[in-house]
């Protein structure tokens, strides 16, 4: 099925395309919003803005792909669900560093490669 993009999606994806991770933050309270809470983008008088995230976080869960679903994603590869330091959760590929397998609770940091954002274990 065709993906339908709003301005919200395009903006987030464009930040990542520029090697930048930004998250929605309410400038009034300083609190970050979950990426699901999209409605601020078109809410009149919203005090929420895209702001740079630290890019660090903790692994909440992860999966390893053993079945190839797409040519541009040769198996095996790992995707982790990460809780960013500011609170919001984000899914992204996980880069294995040597024998480093992901673990729930592992500290990670975001980097960028040709496919976009990828989490690396914190060293």
């Amino acid at each position, binding site marked *: *099925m065709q993906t339908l993009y709003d301005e919200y*999606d395009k903006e987030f*994806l464009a930040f990542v395309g520029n090697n930048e991770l930004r998250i929605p933050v309410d400038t009034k309270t300083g609190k970050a919003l*979950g*990426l*699901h809470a999209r409605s601020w983008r078109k809410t009149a008088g919203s005090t929420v803005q895209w702001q740079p995230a630290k890019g660090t976080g903790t692994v909440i*869960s992860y999966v*390893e792909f053993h079945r190839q679903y797409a040519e541009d*994603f040769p198996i095996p590869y790992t995707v982790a669900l990460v809780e960013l330091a500011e609170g919001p959760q984000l*899914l992204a590929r996980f880069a294995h560093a040597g024998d480093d397998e992901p673990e729930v609770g592992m500290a990670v940091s975001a980097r960028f490669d040709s496919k976009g954002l990828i989490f690396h274990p914190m060293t």
Partner: protein
Amino acid sequence: MKQKPIAAIAGLGFSELSRKPIGTSRELAAAAVDAAITDAGLKRSEIDGLLINRSPVADPDEVPLRLQNDLQLRNLGLLAAIDSEGSSAVQMVQYAAMAIRHGMAKTVVCVFSDTPVKASGGGNTFAIAMPLTGVEGWERQQGFLGASAAYALAARQHMARNGTTERQLGAYAVSCRKWAALNPQAFLRTPLSIEDYLASPMVVAPLRMLDCCYPVNGAIALVVTSAKRAENGPHAPVYIHGMGQGHRGRSGLRGDGDEIGTGAPQAAKMAYKNAGVTAADVTACEFYDAFSYVGILALEEYGLCKPGEAAAYVADGHTAPGGKLPVNTGGGHLSGFYLQGVTPLSEGVIQVRGTGGERQVVNNDLLLVTGSGGCLDYHACVLLSPHAALN
């Protein structure tokens, strides 16, 4: 005075079910509707409501509202497609029951039809990027593909939190296979051991192939009517005593409650309350269990096991034939067949009627039937019984 049933299921109809192409979803839907109407001892002219459930990954025109014309159903007082993903089939029965209760219709047919297995196989039908993050397109960009991946992510959290093991996930698959062996309509009936399970290939770890549902082509329809009218039909009525929904949504924010928890407990609470029962009164379950983990989670979220205890409960054999709480007695989605929400619903009707043959449960007093859609996002359940009044 005992509480009266909300409505009743009076007819159940199947099209042919197959792993091969056997026609379009629209054709199969019509076949199932006709079979259900005949099963209820009715004629097409007596149907005044039609509810349709299409697969969320199918084109809406595969089973259009024009199905009404295919069947020459005239003067319908109720016609809609219900679009709540895997919870839709149970929701159809709920909306039919409500419409009947409030006089909008007298006899409603609810149908689900799907043809996910193509001539080239069924491998790619569910290879979709499930939108979990909140940014459309993000999952595809990250290679987060396939429904299995989304459920694997949830299963891993449960494993990390509760110590759920791969062998326990396997025990659920083995339990379902034991039931399937007793069901002539089930597609996977060969005996399955834990060792067989552990030898099955990983799809998206921690989920193996045998943790995943077995899609088929086909359609199933149900006729819902008032309890009184159902009592005049050729079959014993399947009374609907409780109904609930729960849709918790996602916040994606740390500290916002228990992120593993879904809307299922809310659905359960409402259904138990309006049936005047508790989880302890449920005698068998037909869960929407597209992945092994989902069945284990449902046991906990519907209050049948304490949080974190369902995996051990399954491994101890309590959900298998001869166990104290039969679960997915036709083999469920894993070993029976995957036709989304009508798999558990049809088995619930068969069990309440007492026509389960070798797989018939001893105590069918109160069956819990669930639906679950998205990735554990949308939940609906009904409580079915052969008894017009619950004790």
